[in-house]
């Protein structure tokens, strides 16, 4: 099985779907990066190189560099989706969602419902998120809970290259508006990715590891942190189930409840800030629907209620870490924390 990066996996998904369906177009800031400039036309292939080569292959009618004016081009993607195209629009950093939230929240999300089922808006918005690279407060957020809250939108968080390709193909084929969250720290990570197109259904969690003692639910980049923590506590005789919901909307609550019914203990790992988050949402769903199965109060490992700091001394303290996840696993089992100083 060939190994590809998360970045390549998404590129492949886009290319294969664009080959299959001429109504799929890309638009965003620097998705080609260089259109109209005197030098190389496909110079960037996106700010993170994800769309490199697609302008060269498909041309300016399918890969459109936009001006820096999100309301107009995200809104144009919404309008185009409602009238027969299948656009994949790029919102460079999810931190920029404030500029164009109306077009997603009040327009794309609501057309089908407000128009009595007589509109279809097959839009994909790719966006990047996550702490890292000292991006600081306005370039590091994980705002998927805000989009998850909005009925009419679907929200996807691929955790690996394999997930990224399959979920992107699904997103493009899906007939509802989908917000696709790419964690920037994952772009260079490698994994096995089939060459042929495949899709991963939404609303189906992936159980990566099965154990008896604790269920860990994690998203995006946090999935690999959770796996590392699970492997580490195995040495202490603790076995964990690790669940990656893949999509926060729709959310596979059933699988989460099933695994918690087996273990009785829940740790949720979420890189986003803690108020009104996916972590609190999942803890609430489990508490209200699976209370009798819980042997201990659920634990959340998340960022603090604070903007993301800049300094190299502070940024690592902000992100949930493997150590913090291990500590939460021990705490939910009512075990003493490991004394790392010893």
């Amino acid at each position, binding site marked *: 099985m060939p190994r590809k990066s998360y970045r390549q996996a998404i590129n492949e998904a886009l290319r294969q779907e664009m080959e299959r369906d001429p109504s799929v*177009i890309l638009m965003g800031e620097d998705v080609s990066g260089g259109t109209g400039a005197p030098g190389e036309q496909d110079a960037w292939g996106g700010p993170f190189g994800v769309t490199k080569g697609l302008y060269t292959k498909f041309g300016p*009618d399918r890969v*459109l560099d*936009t*001006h820096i*004016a999100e*309301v*107009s*081009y*995200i*809104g*144009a*993607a*919404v*309008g*185009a*989706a*409602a*009238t*027969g*195209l299948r*656009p994949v629009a790029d919102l460079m950093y999810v931190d920029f969602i404030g500029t164009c939230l*109306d*077009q997603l929240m*009040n*327009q794309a999300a*609501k*057309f*089908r*419902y*407000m*128009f*009595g*089922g*007589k*509109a*279809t808006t097959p839009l994909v918005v790719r966006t990047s998120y996550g702490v890292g690279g000292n991006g600081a407060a306005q370039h590091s957020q994980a705002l998927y809970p805000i989009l998850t809250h909005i*009925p*009419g939108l*679907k929200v996807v968080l691929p955790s690996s290259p394999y997930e990224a390709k399959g979920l992107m193909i699904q997103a493009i084929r*899906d*007939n*509802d508006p989908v917000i696709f969250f790419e964690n920037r720290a994952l772009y260079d990570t490698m994994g096995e990715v089939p060459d042929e197109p495949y899709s991963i259904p939404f*609303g189906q969690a992936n159980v990566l590891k099965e154990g008896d003692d604790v269920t860990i639910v994690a998203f995006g980049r946090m999935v690999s942190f959770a796996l590392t923590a699970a492997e580490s506590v195995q040495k202490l005789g603790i076995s964990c189930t690790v669940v990656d919901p893949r999509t926060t909307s*729709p959310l596979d609550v059933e699988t989460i409840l099933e695994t918690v019914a087996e273990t009785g203990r829940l740790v949720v790992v979420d890189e986003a800030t803690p108020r009104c988050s996916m972590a609190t949402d999942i803890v609430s769903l489990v508490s209200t629907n699976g209370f009798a199965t819980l042997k201990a109060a659920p634990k959340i490992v998340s960022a603090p209620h604070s903007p993301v700091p800049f300094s190299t001394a502070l940024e690592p303290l902000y992100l949930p870490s493997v150590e913090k996840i291990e500590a939460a696993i021990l705490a939910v089992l009512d075990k003493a924390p490991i004394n790392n100083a010893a």
Partner: protein
Amino acid sequence: MIAAIQLNRSELLDAYERMFAIRTFEETMRREFAAGSIPGTVHLYCGEEASAAGICMLLQHGDMIASTHRGHGHCVAKGCDIEGMVKEIMGRRDGLCGGKGGSLHIADLTKGMLGANGIVGAGGPLACGAALTAKLKGTKDVSVAFYGDGGSNQGAILESYNLARLWNLPVIFVVEDNGYAEATPSGWAVSGSQVRRANAFDIPAAEVDGNDFFQVYDTAAEMIERAREGGGPSLLHIKFTRFYGHFEGDAQTYRGKDEVAEARKRDPLDVFRNRVLDAALLERSELEAVEGKIKALLEDAVIAAKNSPFPDEADLLTDVYVEY
């Protein structure tokens, strides 16, 4: 491309029917709202008929319009089903939007009506998107973005000018300037001029007397043809008056004492009637026949709507997604 004055009899009657249908529809909604048969609120288009009629007469079902909160006029002029509209505004199950949208979100994409919109200025980008679809599919369809003097200040609109020009989109921006953004006059809120704003983006623009169907039609025709032939965007600044408030219930104390009475002296329906009768383009009896037909249509629609069922509880959660 022929001038409006050269339209044949049946076309002129079509124009009159559209305008009279809008007027009658809105007056009927006003009456029904006052009687308590309409939930929420309505924003009436009376006084603005020549804009919707003059422009929508030039469009087909494949041409998309993005409307405003004051959307009934655009909806009627675009050929949407009048009975379906009344049912929708009264929240009935077989309304145009299943009773799920109401006045503020009234739409029919099959007729190229991308919806009334509760968000001022949101239609600018949406119309750009519809124009992008037309351009990339090579259909020669155009799109029209309607917004008001108030909406013209939205970032969404100004960004849309840039996008439309850069991508040479077949979109016509129509500023329906009735002199007020809710209770704030355009003189207080709009800097520069609509035409110069468009020209600053290299978009050709013109200002017309919105009470005159013929002016609206002729100017819009040129802009629509430009768009169809690949010439890109234009802006049409329509100046007119709304006879009623921003919404029904608006006491309009911010208007001058005789302002509306003065405006009614240039009622677009009178301007049209006088022109076609004076030039013997149509007979009074033909106009009256249209009027009779439309009045009966509206009365029947109201009766049908009032006898029409409401949505069921099961309809509450339908169509949030195509599939979830």
